[in-house]
C-alpha cells in the first residue's frame, strides 16, 4: 500500500492504495465518485476522462499513485458550488448532445479541455479533438453542435 494525498473536486483526500490501482478505480471505489465511468479496458473510449492538474486525462490510464499531490476534477466537480452548470454541461443539454449519457462525463470533460486550448475551434478541430472519446448513441452530430454552442460558434441543435 502506498499513501497518497490529493484534491478531488475541491476536497482534500488521503488514502492508502495498492500501487496497481488505477485513478478511475480510486475515484469510483474509494471516493464513490461514480459519475466517472469505465467503458473499456484499452483506453480507447474516453468515458473515464477527468482533469488532472487542469488537463484532461483518461483516468484508466493513470495510476492513483501518479495523482499523488495533484488536483483532480471530475464531472461531479464541474458545476458551481451553487449548482450552476458549467457552460459545456449546459450546451450538451441544450443541443441534445447525449442520449444514454454513459460517455457524457468523459465527453464533457474532454470538451472543456478542448475549448480551453482552442476557444473557437472549427468543426474539423472539434471532431479531431474528441477522437479519443467514443459515443454509440448520438452519431456525434449533436455533440459537435454542443461544442460549437459552448464555444459560441453555432446556433445550437438542429432538430
Amino acid at each position, binding site marked *: 500500500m502506498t499513501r497518497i494525498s490529493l484534491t478531488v473536486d475541491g476536497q482534500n483526500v488521503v488514502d492508502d492504495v495498492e500501487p496497481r490501482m488505477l485513478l478511475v478505480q480510486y475515484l469510483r471505489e474509494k471516493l464513490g465518485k461514480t459519475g466517472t465511468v469505465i467503458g473499456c479496458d484499452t483506453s480507447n473510449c474516453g468515458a473515464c476522462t477527468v482533469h488532472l492538474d487542469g488537463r484532461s486525462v483518461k483516468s484508466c490510464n493513470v495510476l492513483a499513485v501518479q495523482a499523488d499531490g495533484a488536483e483532480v476534477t471530475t464531472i461531479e466537480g464541474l458545476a458551481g458550488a451553487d449548482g450552476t452548470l458549467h457552460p459545456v454541461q449546459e450546451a450538451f443539454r441544450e443541443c*441534445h448532445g447525449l442520449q444514454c449519457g454513459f460517455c457524457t462525463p468523459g465527453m464533457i470533460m474532454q470538451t472543456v479541455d478542448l475549448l480551453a486550448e482552442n476557444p473557437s475551434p472549427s468543426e474539423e478541430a472539434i471532431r479531431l479533438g474528441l477522437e479519443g472519446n467514443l459515443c454509440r448513441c448520438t452519431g456525434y452530430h449533436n455533440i459537435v453542435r454542443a461544442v460549437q454552442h459552448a464555444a459560441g460558434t453555432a446556433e445550437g441543435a438542429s432538430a
Partner: protein
Amino acid sequence: MTATQEPTRGEIGRDRRRKEDQRLITGRTRWTDNITLPGMLHLAMVRSPFPHARITSIDTEAAKAAPNVVAVFTGADLGEGQGACINAWPVVPDQVTPAHLPMPTDRVAFAGETVAVVVARSAAEARDAAELVEVDYDELPAALDLKESADNKVLAHPDLGTNVSAVWRFDSAEAGTGGDVEQAIAEARENGIVIEREYRQQRLIPAFMEPRSTVVDPTGEQITVWSATQVPHILRFAIAATTGVPESKIRVIAPDVGGGFGGKLQQTPEEMITFAVARKLGKPVKFTETRSESLLTAHHGRDQWQRLTLAATKDGHVTGLKVDLLADLGAYVAIVGGGVPVLGAFMFNAIYKFPAYQFQTTNVLTNKTWTDAYRGAGRPEATFAIERLMDELAHELGKDPLKVREMNWIKHEEFPFTTVAGLEYDSGNYEAATARAKEMFGYDALRAEQAERRARGDRVQLGIGVSTFTEMCGLAPSRVLGSLNYGAGGWEHAEVRMLATGKVEVVTGASAHGQGHETAFSQIVADRLGVPFEDVEVLHGDTQISHKGLDTYGSRSLVVGGEALVRAVDKVIEKARPVAAHLLEASADDLEFADGRFTVRGTDSGVAITEVATAVFAAHNLPDGVEASIDSEATYDPVNFNYPHGTHLCAVEIDTETGQVRMRKYACCDDIGNVINPLIVSGQVHGGLVQGIAQALWEEAVYDDNGTLVTGSFVDYLLPTAADTISFELDHTTSPATTNSLGTKGVGEAGTIASTPAVVNAVVDALRPYGVHDVAMPCTPERVWRAINSGGPGGETTQAAAPHFDESEGAAQ
C-alpha cells in the same frame, strides 16, 4: 395522407430539452456498477479459450486459497439452481434448440463461455484468483464457417446430429398473397431481366457504451436484481421460469442503462450466474464485465449470407423476388435468436410492388458467440439486400436508380396497401420524401460533378448512393406474434397516478436506456391531461413499480407504450368527470374537459383535474358509490405494425489510389408520422445513421481459424469516432399512422436500416467505371483498393486478422 404537422401550442411537437439530462451531465447517475451494498461480494468469470471442447477437470483449490476469495463455483456446483437461458421464439415447431445452461458442466460451445466463477471481497481479487483456476479441456472440432456449418461438416453440438436449427419459409403463392416466384423468374429468364446476387451481412457487435453489470441482493423477502438490461420484465419472467423462484419473489430493476441497441435484449448467462451465486451465499454480489468480455460474450448481430434473385420486365418493372438466407445463430439459440432473420421475411419486398415473393432462412448453429437482435433486427439485412438489388437493376437498365425505384414503389394514393408478404401498410408518401431528400442533397448538381470527375479521370471519384426503406415498427400485435409461435405478447402497459399535491406519476412498462422516454412521455401526458410538463414524473424499469410491461426494443415504446399511456390518461379523465360534476353541482353530461379543467358548458364554473385529485385524496365529499381514486391503468395491444419510411442519399469520395472512402454528404428525409419531440427524433436518426454507416465502412466481428474473436477490444473492433463521421442533413415528411391515437411511427431503428445500403451503393456507384459491381462490407480501404484493381468485391478481412495471443499460453485476454 401526407400533411404538414399543424403547429401546436401544446407540448406535442415541441423540442423540449430532456428531463433526463440534468443527472447525466452532472454525474449523478445510477449505473448498475455504481451500486454498492453492505458486505457485497464481487464475481469474476473463468472463460473458455476454446470454441468447442470437453471440460475434463476443473481445479479450483488454488483460487479458493487466494486472498479474500469467498468461494469458487463450477457449473456442477451451481446445479439446477443456475436455471437456464431461454429461447422465446422457436420459429418452427421442430426447431433444434441446444440446451443452454448459464455455466455448462461438461462441454463449452464457444470461446468465452463461462466454466467457473470466482467470488471475492473485491473485483480485483476475484479477477486475480480467476487466473488460478486450472481447467483441462479436450478440444473438439469447431463449426466456424457459416456455409460449411450449414452443410454439417463439423457439428457445433454433436448430440443434436445437425447444425440446422430451423428452416423457415414464406411463399406468396402458398400464402395466397401473390404469385409463383419460380414462374416469375422463369419468365424473366426468357424475356426480361434476372439479377442474381449473393451478399454478405458481416457479423457485428452492438457495443453499447455501458458494459453489462448485474447486482443481486438476496437479503430481505424479495431477491432484488439490478441489471444493465433493456428488458427487466422479460428478465424477471425468465429467471422465475427457469430457477423455480416464484416470480413474486423477484424484483428486477433496470436503473440508468447506458445504451442497448438490442444488445441488452437478452437473458444472459452472467445474470443467471450472479443470481445463483447470491442465492447460494445469501450475500449481495456484483458482476461487471470488462469491455473485452462484453465484445466476446454479449450477443452479436447480423451474420448472414443472402442469395437473392430478382426478376423484372425488360423495362424494369419488378415481377418476382426470391430470398434464400443462411443465418448464423452462434452456439445457442438466443432469446429472439432465430426470429431475427424471420423478422426480415416481411421486409425484403420493402416499398415495392412485387407480384411474387419467396423467402427462406436456414438458421445455423456454429461454435461462435450467439447472435440476436441488433438495431433493426432483420430489417437492415432485408433493406440492404433489396436496395443493393434495385441499384443493380438500374445499372442493368442504364437508368437512374431513383427512377427505377419510383417505377416500382407503392404510390401514395394506393395506401393502405397489402403487400406480397401479407402486411398492410397504413400510410406513406415515398414520392414526397424522395423529392425532399433530393432537394436537400442537391442530387442533380452532384450527379453533374460525378460525370465531370469521371470524364477527366480524377484520382478522387464521387459516388452517389440511394436508399429508400420502410420497416415494421411497434412490436407487435399479440395475435401476429402468436401466429409466428413467439412465446409472449406484444402489448404494453401504462398507469397514471394523480397525487394529492397535483403532481402526476406516470408508470410505463417500456424501459428506456437513452431514448428520452421521461421527456417524451411527459409531453404526451402534459398535453392530454392539461398539466405542466414539469409536474409529470415518469417511472419505469422496476418491476415493483412498473409491475407489468414488455420493455423496450423494436421501436415500440412510443407507438405501443405511448398509446397505452394515452388510454390510461383518458381513463383518468373519465373517472374524474363524475367527481368534478359532483363538486360543481352540475350534470356530468354538461361538463367539458380542456387544458386540464372541467367546465360547465356555457358558464365560468370549473374545476382543475388536479383539484379533483386533491378532493379524491381527501374523499370527504364524493358522490355516492364512486371509488376514492381516479388513478387509471391501460394495457394496449397494437392492431397493426406501423410503417415509417424514408429516402436517404449519400455521397462519398473515393481516393482510387489508396481506396480511402470519405463521406462527403448525407441527406435523408424520413416519414415517421407525427413527431412528439423533434430534438429526440433527430438524435435517434443521427445515431442510427452512424451505426448503419459503420456497418458499411468499418465494423466487423472477425474470428480466426481457431475460433478466437480477434476483434475483442476497441482497438480492433472499429467503432466510429467523431473524426470519422460528418454532420447530417435531416428533414421529415408526415404521413400520420392510422392505427394509433397520436399518429406516430417508430424512429429508433430507421437511420440504421437505411444508411448501410445508401453508403455501399455510393461506394459501388463511384467504382462502376472500374468494372466493380460489389464491395463486401465493411468497405475498408484495402477492399476498395483491391476491388478497383481486380474488379471483384475485395476479399475477406479474416485473412488480415493477426493472432492476438501466443497459442502456448492458451488463454484469450
